[in-house]
């Protein structure tokens, strides 16, 4: 290691109210490397990087950049020092063009904008240089998420940066787009730039990094050269204990058809077609996965199945009974459980207590209610049981669910939905916003359900989640099911192509 690192973070501390986000972090980044920052959700990766790029000010500690102590009061000051960050939630204004986004906040506020041609030319030149396919006159809201991300990266380059921080950039990409991004990172380094790559995906980190720092509980616990470690070791560093990477599959063949969807179509809230003729069966004792880049109709499919979005045509049959177009309450009562994608919108009521949330669908049924009055004791007992069985970290059952961490909220939703003993369980993003430890636990719960003969439909954008527990994987693109694959990692390329909408099979050689 050189004795003068490019960027040195020294014993940084940051609190948000009672939450300690950074608990004395120290880290060194060298010039011209790809340095990955690995850690579970809530480990403090994003906050740390936000402090480097001027979004958040540290309470204690110092940042030494190119040999000088720096204190950025705003991202603008960091950009002036040639440090840029691509955030998980893009900082692009949707109703403006790419070029307008780039010049936002530049120059005097009262300036008349008359140099747009020059700006466009500069963007085109940069876009060509890194093969980014960014059109300066495109309106951001018309672009796909992958395109928007390239627009964000180019924005940083446009402003002129030497250090680029990418916060979980691959979460929204197809495998092919991910490949492209990883090779772009290589190109940037070749041009003399330094990249910090925040991720919780072990394989990507292993592929692209020079060095890897693992964060846990607001600290950097290890920094290693990529050649001196492996995925298993990194996982252990992240969680602080051994993690089972492969979950056992049951040899039992699937049973009768529990849920049958025939030619389902429905429109998104915008009125545009979102699900275009989806047919699928889910049998007892199997977990069927639906893979796809988000925004390809998965959200609408799950809302339509659970009665939250009107069905235009087609049929949904559960246990031989047509449930198409029934209201959510009736569907819920038909042995149908739903673990929704957007927990805050469809899963829980943030301001209500754990026990009130635990009986959201059954508040009017025995034993929780009698003659129109709630039975507090039965509700409390039931909730305490759920909390205990699913290890929901909470003070007691009367605590507002909104004050729990995302992972614990999700555990309660999973507990509630499974406690209803459904024949069919619809899951959209099982592990959203929960850490790897809790993820392992809810996945095991899903497998238990499968082994007990339940039918599970798991919609996910996380391929790891699908590979880990599904018996077969359907790929959704543009509102259609494009194909089916076994959960076999060696066929990842094929899966990626389907996720990008490419169905044509390459001709078999020889």
């Amino acid at each position, binding site marked *: 290691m050189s004795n003068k690192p490019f960027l040195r973070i020294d014993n940084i501390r940051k609190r948000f109210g009672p939450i300690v986000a950074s608990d004395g972090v120290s880290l060194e980044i060298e010039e011209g490397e790809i340095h990955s920052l690995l850690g579970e959700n809530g480990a403090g990766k994003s906050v740390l990087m936000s402090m480097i790029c001027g979004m958040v000010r540290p309470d204690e500690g110092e940042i030494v950049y190119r040999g000088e102590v720096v204190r950025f009061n705003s991202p*603008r000051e960091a950009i002036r020092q040639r440090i840029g960050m691509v955030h998980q939630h893009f900082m692009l*204004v949707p109703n403006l063009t790419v070029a*307008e986004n780039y*010049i*936002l*906040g*530049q120059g005097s*506020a009262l300036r008349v*904008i008359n140099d747009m041609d020059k700006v466009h030319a500069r963007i085109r030149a940069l876009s060509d240089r890194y093969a980014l396919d960014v059109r300066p006159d495109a309106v951001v809201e018309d672009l796909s998420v992958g395109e928007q991300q390239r627009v964000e990266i180019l924005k940083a380059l446009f402003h002129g940066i030497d250090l680029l921080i990418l916060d979980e950039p691959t979460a929204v990409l197809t495998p092919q787009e991910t490949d492209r991004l990883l090779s772009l990172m290589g190109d940037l380094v070749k041009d003399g730039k330094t990249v910090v790559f925040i991720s919780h995906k072990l394989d990507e980190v292993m592929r692209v990094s020079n060095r890897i720092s693992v964060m846990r509980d607001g600290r950097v616990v290890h920094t290693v050269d990529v050649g001196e470690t492996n995925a298993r070791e990194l996982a252990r560093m992240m969680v602080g204990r051994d993690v089972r990477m492969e979950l056992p599959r049951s040899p039992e063949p699937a049973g009768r058809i529990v849920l049958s969807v025939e030619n389902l179509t429905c429109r998104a809230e915008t009125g545009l077609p979102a699900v275009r003729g989806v047919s699928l069966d889910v049998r007892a004792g199997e977990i069927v996965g639906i893979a796809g880049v988000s925004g390809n109709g998965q959200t609408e499919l799950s809302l339509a199945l659970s009665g939250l979005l009107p069905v235009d045509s087609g049929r949904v049959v559960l246990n031989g009974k047509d449930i198409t177009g029934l209201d959510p309450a009736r569907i819920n009562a038909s042995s149908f459980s739903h673990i929704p994608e957007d927990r805050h919108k469809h899963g829980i009521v943030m301001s209500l207590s754990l026990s009130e949330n635990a009986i959201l669908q059954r508040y009017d049924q025995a034993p929780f209610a009698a003659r129109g009055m709630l039975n507090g004791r039965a509700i409390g007992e039931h909730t305490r049981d759920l909390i205990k069985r699913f290890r929901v970290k909470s003070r007691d059952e009367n605590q507002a669910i909104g004050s729990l961490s995302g992972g614990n909220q999700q555990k309660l939703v999973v507990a509630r939905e499974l406690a209803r003993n459904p024949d069919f369980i619809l899951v959209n993003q099982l592990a959203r916003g929960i850490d790897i430890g809790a993820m392992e636990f809810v996945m095991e719960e899903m497998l238990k359900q499968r082994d007990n003969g339940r039918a599970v439909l798991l919609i996910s954008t996380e391929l790891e989640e699908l590979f880990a527990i599904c018996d077969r994987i359907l790929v959704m693109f543009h509102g259609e099911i494009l194909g089916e694959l076994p959960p076999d990692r060696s066929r990842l390329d094929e899966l990626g192509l389907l996720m990008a909408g490419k169905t044509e099979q390459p001709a078999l050689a020889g």
Partner: protein
Amino acid sequence: MDDMMFLTFLATLMGAAWRLATPLIFASIGEVFSERAGVLNIGLEGTMLVGAFCGFATASATGSILIGLLAGILGGMAFGLLFALFTITIKADQIVVGAALNLLGMGLTAFLFRTYYVSTGKGIEIAQPVHIPFLSDLPFLGEAFFRQNLIVYSTILVTILAALVLYRTSFGLTLRAVGEHPKAVDVAGRNVAGYRYAAVLVGTGLAGLGGAFLTLGHSNQFVEGITSGRGFIALAVVVFARWSPTGAFFVSLLFGLFYALQLMLQAEASVVVPYQVLQALPYIMTIVTLIVVRGKGAAPSKLGQPYEMR
């Protein structure tokens, strides 16, 4: 009505429509600025009343219409500062504060007017029509468009200026961004609250001007509640106009036409509809418009939401 009479009727109607649209044009273009920055100011009605009163009081004291108009703008902006303080700095609910300012505007202007002016009952000299040479002598068009007072003509200037500022300056670009993705503006190093203050002040200044036109360019007197709902109609105009200044100009003209039609039909003996129904025309059209032009469409996505800086 023979053809000639009908043409005259039409010309008078068009001329009156533009005149009656003028306060709406000012107020709605102002509100476009405010809403583009994410601030929904439903206190326009009260703001216009304040503008109308300040304009009247100042003009009757100084005898100058120009100073009166300036006072109307400043009065509106003072009211806007109050709104901005509560909604942007204190982050109170925009609807509640707007409603409060409407009540305050109505009560305050009525109180001051009764205290100082009602006994005198004195009117003021209002802005006189300026006949544009040659053009005002054109048949039909002359009567409709070229015999207005300067304030009415200035609506064109204000519209063009507003569109240029909004779409061709760095200020306008940032303003449009503030209503859509304030955090991006914050990250780009601009002060979100500052832009919202500016937008509210532009908005309420123009609303004040619209109010002042009522007393200085239209009627020569202040009357309690002289705006009679124009502030609310301006809010509807903004929606119909899809948050565009030029759109606001033309939609305001359309509403001006309803006002004019209503007035002229009342005077027409051959029309047998009760005059109350005619009077309700602009308001009915507002409701119809809001039903027809619905959906979120171009609404700034952070409209009505305070911005929390981290």
